[in-house]
């Protein structure tokens, strides 16, 4: 039996959805599931990891790992990997993991498949499917010459069932791993204004484009998003116009999103934007131009004046979601 290692991210001890997805997928593979969590709250997260299928969870509770530092994280994770010797490693394709695991792959002389949307573990053979060109094509990734196969999965791609509190994990604690001649110092973390989920993790995304006419009209989308619990995105045109920051851009030179519901408002649908949203399960397009390319990629289309339609939608959703 192989070992599958899951690096779990948590927020003050509460596991992120992506971590639950991976733990459950690892459990389903039939292999032994080893977990790891770091920073304050790691022990609380470790208990929860047990409920999602981890047999053994390694924790380093040192507050020096509360925030990300590539060198300190690489040292900590490599230390535990060398101790546990897993064959497969799963982590979410988050900002942190996408930065950290290529470094670890290089250090451990092994391969990595980043930003994957499908995962198949059959015995020791791991294949993953990943979007290329931001979703204009897909390919399957196979590993060679890789003693440890590292797969970073996008969030919201795998099913999650509720925690089974009868399953528990053995918790193994380690001290902080020191790094001699540290070359990277984290000076500060500046928190964004938004408390909402990031676009890449959001289950519902409401995006706006040039049809909104001016930056101030993003308020219409914020109102709709608030009712839906959605995150607001934008097209490249309005980011380049300076209406909203680049972090909100959906598309080939922005973020690739995969929500259950994507609502495109006043976005005509340039090929780069369509690529970035192509992982969305259901797409609603609202545009006054019936010939807009966005309608070809939409599940439901509304031709109309967004300044009339969007407030109506907000109102109707408010009523509907109350029940």
């Amino acid at each position, binding site marked *: 039996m192989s070992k599958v290692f899951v690096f779990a991210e948590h927020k003050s001890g509460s596991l992120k959805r992506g971590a639950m997805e991976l733990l459950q997928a690892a459990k389903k593979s039939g292999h032994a599931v080893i977990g790891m969590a770091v920073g304050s709250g790691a022990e609380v997260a470790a208990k929860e990891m047990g409920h999602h299928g981890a047999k053994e969870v390694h924790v380093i509770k040192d507050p020096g790992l509360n925030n*990300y530092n590539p060198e300190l994280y690489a040292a900590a994770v490599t230390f535990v990997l060398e101790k546990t010797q897993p064959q497969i490693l799963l982590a979410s394709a988050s900002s942190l993991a996408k930065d950290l695991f290529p470094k670890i792959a290089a250090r451990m002389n092994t391969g990595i498949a980043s930003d994957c949307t499908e995962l198949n573990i059959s015995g020791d053979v791991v294949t993953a499917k990943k979007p290329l060109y931001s979703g204009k094509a897909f*390919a399957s990734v196979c590993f060679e010459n890789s003693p440890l196969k590292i797969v970073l999965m996008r969030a919201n791609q795998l099913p999650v069932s509720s925690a089974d509190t009868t399953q528990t994990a053995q918790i193994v604690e380690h001290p902080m791993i020191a790094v001699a001649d540290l070359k990277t110092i984290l000076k500060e973390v500046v928190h964004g204004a938004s408390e909402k989920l990031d676009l890449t993790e959001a289950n519902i995304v409401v995006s706006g484009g040039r049809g909104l006419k001016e930056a101030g009209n993003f308020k219409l989308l914020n109102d709709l998003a608030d009712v839906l619990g959605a995150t607001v995105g934008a097209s490249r045109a309005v980011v380049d116009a300076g209406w909203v920051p680049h972090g909100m851009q959906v598309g080939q030179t922005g973020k690739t999103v995969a929500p259950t519901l994507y609502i495109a408002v006043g976005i005509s649908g340039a090929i780069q934007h369509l690529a970035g949203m192509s992982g969305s399960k259901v797409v609603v397009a609202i545009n006054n131009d019936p010939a807009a390319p966005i309608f070809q*990629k939409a599940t439901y289309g509304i031709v109309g004046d967004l300044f009339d339609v969007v407030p109506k939608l907000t109102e109707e959703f408010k009523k509907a979601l109350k029940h």
Partner: protein
Amino acid sequence: MKIFVCIKQVPDTETKMKISPDANSIDTTGVKWVINPYDEYAIEEALKCREANPGSQVYILSAGPSKRVSESLRTALAMGADEGLVINAPEGLDCFSTARALAAVITSEGGASLVFTGKLAIDDNASSVSQMLAEFLKAPHVTVVSKLSISPEGVSAERDIEGGSKEIFALKTPAVIGANKGLNTPRYASLPGIMKAKKKVLKEIEFASLNISASDQKVRLSQFSLPPEKPAVKMLSGDSTAQASELIKLLRDEAKAL
């Protein structure tokens, strides 16, 4: 200061993808090749660093089929870089082998004070080469950088993370920086720049001469496919009130998206 910028040539973002008959790659016939958009921010930042530190040199490095890739290197030279280096490598090199090759060349050229890359390449979205390269060079890295300042003590870099938050790092040099959109506004190649670029050195290095082991190929892509066709859109009629209530009904009962 010796500054390297590692760039990748990718299909233009307007490209409609086709799959090759054996499904082991995309069909590149008729593809317009460009510099990976994030690498343009990397080039611009390197040029700005050189301007702020007189006497510095900017080298542009890329791996791939040399004839095709050289065109992108010429563009970077026309933007103002001093010298180009192309590693004539086969298609389908993975991130690990690429990073090994880039590290080998940077080392044999005497090393660098700063190495810039884009935060990711828009073709494979792997966002891996910069961190691997840093590890092979034993240098620290920061990726997804939207603000950078350089002082004699080292560099300070702002990294964009989820939810509009930022991590601010101080690094000792030599360091590897992965550029994000927002770092700067890349300049265009001027006509005199294009003329001058023709006379600049563009060195070709054979991948085989770098002694990169075959076992450095760690992943292989196969079974390429296009996204599944979406069923035809359902257009909602009536006035906005009717459209709104119809949409909510469909989202709830048919699409089960609420």
